[in-house]
């Protein structure tokens, strides 16, 4: 049987080589199908990784709460915040109060500067915030200290030639001492922190003249328990807003991430499905060529049978021929696919990643196509009657 298999492989191969042009045209269908699958999977994966990376940068361990409030209560009170801070598995709660005003230093006015109130937790959970100086401390928050950190645009505009640390600026008519500067923002953010000043949130509340906090960033200790923690936060918020569900909105980064992955996953499946259609078309091409081959070689098949080839041996030879054609197309498609996805990801500007499972997927798919579409012609060949076959000369 070993001899037979080896010879079948050799014979199949010789037949493919003998009809080079025809073989190449035949495998083109599978080649294009596999190219499409590999390229689509890689490019979609690259884009997904890119989006996921950006979302992860915003923090998967962060639960953001946005307060719309009710007519009677426009935000969270300090008591509500203290209540939420009691929830288990929390690293900390960072209230955010924001407004817009003008600031003055040394008689120079800067308009439309965002004033953001934060606390120590905000700084503790992001090492990409502080450029120089010190962050806001819990003491600053509790004593409503008039201190602030300024963004890079503010530094450029008001302190072009000197260090801003310990200088005093006037925010909304109140004098604040600069304790630090903020890092230049990476750009991927809705509000630019460059054109802003950060003060303790208690200070910001007095500046803006509000008793309510409109937003919270809640940092989770154990990311795995984030869903449970989110549920507890929700129940606390429901209590705070008298069970009015429209009073607030909870944004969990993990949820966003899941949505993104689900979306791109669906997209890859859809694209791969379209590519799979071209694989099937390629398979039909192979089947067509195999049927032609069987007809062409009727006499040869008859002779081989007369000389002692069993139906199974003939079938094996033709199935192998279809399998080789298809696999060859698959391998060429794999190479083309990798090349195209490399160029494609470079063009879009995302990182090129070769998805591990795409190689066995492509080769497995083309092998299955070859076997499935080679089976019928091979069966036909094996059933040829040697007498009729020999007579057809």
């Amino acid at each position: 049987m070993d001899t037979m298999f080896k010879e079948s492989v050799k014979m199949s191969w010789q037949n493919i080589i003998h009809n080079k042009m025809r073989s190449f045209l035949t495998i083109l269908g599978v080649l294009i199908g596999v190219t499409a699958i590999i390229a689509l999977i890689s490019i979609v994966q690259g884009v997904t990784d890119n989006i996921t990376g950006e979302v992860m940068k915003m923090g998967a361990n962060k639960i953001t709460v946005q307060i719309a409030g009710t007519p009677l209560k426009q935000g969270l009170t300090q008591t509500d915040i203290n209540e939420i801070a009691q929830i288990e598995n929390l690293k900390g709660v960072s209230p955010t109060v924001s407004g817009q005003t003008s600031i003055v230093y040394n008689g120079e006015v800067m308009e439309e500067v965002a004033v953001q109130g934060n606390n120590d937790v905000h700084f503790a959970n992001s090492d990409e915030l502080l450029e120089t100086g010190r962050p806001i401390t819990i003491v600053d928050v509790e004593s409503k200290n008039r201190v602030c950190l300024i963004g890079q645009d503010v530094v450029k505009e008001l302190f072009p030639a000197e260090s801003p640390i310990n200088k005093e600026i006037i925010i909304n008519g109140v004098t604040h001492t600069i304790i630090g500067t903020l890092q230049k923002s990476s750009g991927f953010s809705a509000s630019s922190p460059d054109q802003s000043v950060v003060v303790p949130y208690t200070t910001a509340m007095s500046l803006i003249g509000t008793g309510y906090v409109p937003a919270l960033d809640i940092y989770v200790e154990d990311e795995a328990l984030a869903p449970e923690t989110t549920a507890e936060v929700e129940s606390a918020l429901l209590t705070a807003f008298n069970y009015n569900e429209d009073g607030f909105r909870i944004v969990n980064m993990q949820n966003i991430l899941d949505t993104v992955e689900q979306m791109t996953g669906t997209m890859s499946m859809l694209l791969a499905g379209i590519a799979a259609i071209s694989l099937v078309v390629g398979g039909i091409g192979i089947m067509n060529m195999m049927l032609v081959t069987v007809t062409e070689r009727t006499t040869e098949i008859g002779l081989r049978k007369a000389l002692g080839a069993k139906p199974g041996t003939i079938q094996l030879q033709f199935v192998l021929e279809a399998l080789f054609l298809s696999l060859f197309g698959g391998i060429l498609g794999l190479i083309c696919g990798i090349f195209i996805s490399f160029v494609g990801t470079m063009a879009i500007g995302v990182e090129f990643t070769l998805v591990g499972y795409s190689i066995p997927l492509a080769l497995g798919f083309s092998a299955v196509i070859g076997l499935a579409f080679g089976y019928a012609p091979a069966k036909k060949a094996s059933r040829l009657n040697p007498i009729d076959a020999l007579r057809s000369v």
Partner: protein
Amino acid sequence: MNTILNMKDIVKTYRMGDEEQRVLNEINFNVEQGEFVTILGPSGSGKSTLMNIIGCLDVPTSGNYDLNGNDVAHMDEETLSEVRNREIGFIFQQFQLLPRLSALDNVELPLIYAGVSEKERKQRAKAMLEKVGLGTKLKNKPNQLSGGQQQRVAIARALITQPTILLADEPTGALDQKTGVQIMELFQELHAEGKTIVMITHDEKIARHGSRIVKILDGTLTEYRQEDEQHG
């Protein structure tokens, strides 16, 4: 004498629409070891059908056929393949060589299906081609050989498995007179070596190279008698 081919009451019928056509009519036919039998008959006499059954390419509708101890009449396709490979050496009118293979590779073919190792195949095929006088043409493709040379390659291929019977169907039909005679001389050499040969032909002159002639006409087999020759 050792009977290696024994056919008893072989009947072959084909259905042609509603009609049943009896192509072979209770054929009784024996071949002894070492005989060179020719089956003489015009086209349409049933000789091709008889050859197919002798060659195990087809099975009879009824009757018994024993070939070297194999009950051929009742075998499935798989086993028939094995019997063909082991017991029969085919020689065809149109040579039936595979055009893409060299002479050596063509001769090797039956040994591949017999499961013989590559090294042994090459040795035996080379020896057999030398025996039929083509020792210098091993690498030639069929289209680089003359008709007579091609038929010699085919004969070498038929001999390679050392079959019980050499079965030749009009072996000189595609050759000119002179080459045909040379092929017949080769047949007679093989016969002299003790090979058993069954040859089918419509040509009485060619048939006379055999040691015994049987005639087939309308599906019935008869021994060839001297008066047939005189009247013919």
